[in-house]
């Protein structure tokens, strides 16, 4: 795109073209740049690994393995080291198990009065889902439940009057 074309397509941009970006640099910035880059290269070189380091790493590792004398560990010391923590852990486990089995759950429920259980249920503390009830009473026939008595005809008419029939059909 030539200047003339730019002027035709974008006259405002063409006008601004003679202006600079407005970006500035600190005085003398470029004078020290070569030295900064060279010292950066030297710093990076110092941190670099020696040349050919990875070529010889395998040999050096094997040499180190060969030169290392195997450690002799006494069997008695080894047994004491392993057995002590195991013995402590086993004792704790035994203590917890005994505590758990000492408590007799049946005694607790046998001592409960029927009235106490009723009060607990009436307070709404028995939180059972429909699924839990059906899984316990699998032979119960829920079809015989007389639910229709729970709502009067007036209640049903009032409910049907409140709802938007179109959205009700769509959602059901």
């Amino acid at each position, binding site marked *: *795109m030539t200047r003339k074309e730019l002027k035709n*397509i*974008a006259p405002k941009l063409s006008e*601004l073209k003679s202006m600079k970006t*407005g970006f500035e640099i600190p005085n003398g910035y*470029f004078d020290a740049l070569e030295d900064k880059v060279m010292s950066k290269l030297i710093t990076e070189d110092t941190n670099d690994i020696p040349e050919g380091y990875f070529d010889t790493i395998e040999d050096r590792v094997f040499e180190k393995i060969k030169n290392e004398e195997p450690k002799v560990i006494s069997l008695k010391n080894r047994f004491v080291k392993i057995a002590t923590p195991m013995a402590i852990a086993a004792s704790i486990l035994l203590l917890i198990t005994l505590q758990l089995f000492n408590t007799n759950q049946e005694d607790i429920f046998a001592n409960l009065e029927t009235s106490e259980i009723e009060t607990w249920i009436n307070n709404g503390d028995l939180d059972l889902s429909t699924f839990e009830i059906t899984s316990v009473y699998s032979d119960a026939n829920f079809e015989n439940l007389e639910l229709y008595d729970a709502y009067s005809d007036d209640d049903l008419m009032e409910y049907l009057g409140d709802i938007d029939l179109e959205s009700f059909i769509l959602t059901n």
Partner: protein
Amino acid sequence: MTSEQELIAQLKNKQTQENAFRILMGQYKERLYWHIRKIVVSHADADDVLQNTFVKIYRNIDKFKGESKLYSWMYRIATNESITFINKRAKQNNVDISEYQHNLAETLQDDVHFSGSEIQLILQKAIATLPEKQQLVFKMKYFDEMKYNDMSEILETSVGALKASYFHAVKKIEKIITAH
């Protein structure tokens, strides 16, 4: 042998490398700096990226096969370093690159190394609204008046695609600055 070929030969020779590299930096530091600065916007970031660019050039000069001009090869490294840099910065700030560039343009007036007028600020903000590649094309052509063939080597994009990209960028920016 041209002076560029001589310089490349010296750069590849361990004994003449350092001196040749200083000559190369002297020749290209300002051009590369301004190219980088227009992409990363702040001076401190441009300084960082310029140094990294030269380090990369020094380390990879042996891989330069002369298939493109040395100038294009260096510009490509500078462009890639700048894009990598702003992507990294955007990631650090948990924003995408376009939001990062938009934020850069918005805070430009507080930059001590920016003395542009209001219209220059509007221009920078308008450029920040363009897609990343279009921004690059616009900056290289509008500010640096780079030839399409050189841009094609640097950005590895066909001349036709670059022309179309520049045309769209110009239209969009003109619309934004005219509205102000």
